């Protein structure tokens, strides 16, 4: 299966290991992975700040890089949700997948050669969870499901724990993290406190932006807890 790997801009620049793990994992699972090299950003930072009117150049660049593919796969629920909801091209909107949903819904994998004998706390990123429906949500009266947990359960030796408020937002929120700095940090600190109560070694999630925010707080606290994108664990042998 031919797949185009969408690498969100901040992952490209600051978390290349997440893109490397995505690439390796998809190849391991038999995909022919193409990385369009002129890709930049999905346009979400501007749009969520009220400047959707300024994303035309960004949108056109995305279309140019990706319109030839039936499967566009990216390791970020938030960026993928933005494309699905707001990208002007219907082809792009219907071809883009968050990597977890691609693994469970398209590749339908039932085993993985992965091992990660550690205690991890699961962070539900809102856009993936509520926007892309990667898992059920506590607000609704619905049957529980979780694509993230389904995937992590394939990993050897892993111990998964959930924070007490299983799906409360971490407070990243794009430019919210700086324009509403006080609330943003307080929300992040509160998430971390609940993971700490479970004595986790890693906080794992499907959105690097949330993890970047919590990592910044953890490091300032001098914590030994680390953050990992779920693909880094699924790709961990």
């Amino acid at each position, binding site marked *: 299966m031919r797949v185009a790997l969408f690498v969100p801009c901040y992952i*490209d*620049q600051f978390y290349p290991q997440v893109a490397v793990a995505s690439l390796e994992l998809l190849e391991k699972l038999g995909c022919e992975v193409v990385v369009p090299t002129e890709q930049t950003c999905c346009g979400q930072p501007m749009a*969520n700040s009220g*400047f959707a009117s300024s994303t035309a150049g960004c949108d056109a660049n995305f279309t140019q890089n990706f319109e030839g593919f039936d499967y566009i796969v990216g390791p970020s629920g938030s960026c993928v949700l933005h494309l699905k909801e707001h990208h002007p091209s219907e082809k792009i909107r219907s071809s883009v997948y968050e990597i977890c949903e691609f693994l469970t819904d398209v590749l339908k994998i039932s085993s993985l050669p992965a091992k990660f004998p550690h205690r991890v706390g699961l962070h539900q990123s*809102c856009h993936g969870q509520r926007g892309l429906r990667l898992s059920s949500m506590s607000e609704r*009266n619905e049957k529980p499901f979780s694509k993230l947990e389904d995937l992590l359960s394939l990993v050897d030796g892993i111990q998964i724990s959930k924070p007490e*408020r299983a799906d409360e937002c971490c407070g990243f929120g794009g430019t919210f993290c700086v324009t509403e700095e006080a609330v943003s940090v307080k*929300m992040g600190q509160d998430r971390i406190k609940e993971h700490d109560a479970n004595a986790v070694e890693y906080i794992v999630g499907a959105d690097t932006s949330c993890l970047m925010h919590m990592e910044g707080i953890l*490091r300032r606290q001098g914590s030994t807890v680390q953050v990992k994108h779920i693909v880094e664990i699924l790709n961990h042998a």
Partner: protein
Amino acid sequence: MLSHSEASEKFISDAERTDWHDETLWFVRAKRDKASKVLPEWEAMREHASQIKDHTLANLGEYLQAFEAKAIANGIKVHWAADAAEHNAIVHSIIAAQGSKTIVKSKSMLTEECHLNDYLASKGIDVVDTDLGERIVQFRNEAPSHIVLPAIHLKKEDVGETFHQHLGTPKGNKDPQFLTEAARQHLRGHFLASEVAITGVNFAVAETGEFVVCTNEGNADMGAHLAKVHIACTGIEKIIPKRADLAVFLRLLARSATGQLITTYSSHFHKPREGQEMHIVLLDNGRTRQLADPKYKNSLKCIRCAACFNTCPVYRRSGGHSYHQPVAGPIGSILAPNIDKKANADLPFASTLCGSCSNVCPVKINIHEQLWFWRQDLMEAGLAPAGKTIGMKLMAFTLANPAIYRIGGSLLRRFSALLNTSLNPWYKQREMPEAPKESFQEWYKKR
């Protein structure tokens, strides 16, 4: 006036109180979860309620006229107010005709929206709020911080001190039962003396011309049943077609608001009792403008349960006053810009767009999507804070040009240590991410 982010920073500076506020409201959200999850039909009921409201809003004119005709036939006097000023003038004229100087009022966010108390005070008329939470904030000369729990920002110690000052309770007494009894005795005098009672309206039924007022304290009933004149103030969006629809809304309202199965008092006011005057004031105040905009029309479905407040991770940590509006929280953030764009341009940004609000909403308002639309409209109206527009345009330009993006990214990584300064809001309480030597694309090229 402080912006939402400034007021939040102030609120959060008392970390212990913030945690208490967050946990108290989360407790209410958890009660709501429990009450909603025992009903297998919960999601179907939300959908049903949403459709009733959609239908009503699509035919609002007809239902309002039907309500008016029935209400008049029942002996209720019906008044129409285009805006807050007209609303207040109507209420004043009714009170003036009665000659009253003291009146009691049960909870009504609409009268907060119109700043009725201040207006009447300027006319020499004293309004006593009879909802316990509202009476507490009224004593303190504060606005309600929550539409269902107006004094939720206060601890029992605060209430004890306030009552000590205003009701003469013993200093230091913070026993909730004792304080409630003191309020009860204090309010009883006002109920007995007052000749005019103002109430809000939860639902106005087009089919019958009756209106329904929900309280847990029975204060609306105490006021309305004792006074010679009952004035009910309502927004035009509170109309529902049939009495049978209450079977959906009354169940959703209390479960969503507090996790109760139903409000303690759900009182139906159908016609004035003998010798009583009953008035209803129907207010527009921007609602028809909202109705005309397909992006925001949905917000008029709101039944004011405040479930979106209780679930909002921002509201729980920023407090209701940070929204500087009578209706705070996520729903307030999509209602307020319709009244005044400039004064409320910060509110749609007081959200991470986590989407929890839209999913607890009993009438399925797409709150987080409307926040997103307001952000666009406010920026297009030129209401961006200084420097934001140029910053965004620069970012958009960079991200539209791969070569410039690569140079920008490389510079950002190389000099990221320069961002470790107090001028960078990220760095205030968080470390910057460690910059890798190579971007992914640089690595990939060499692969």
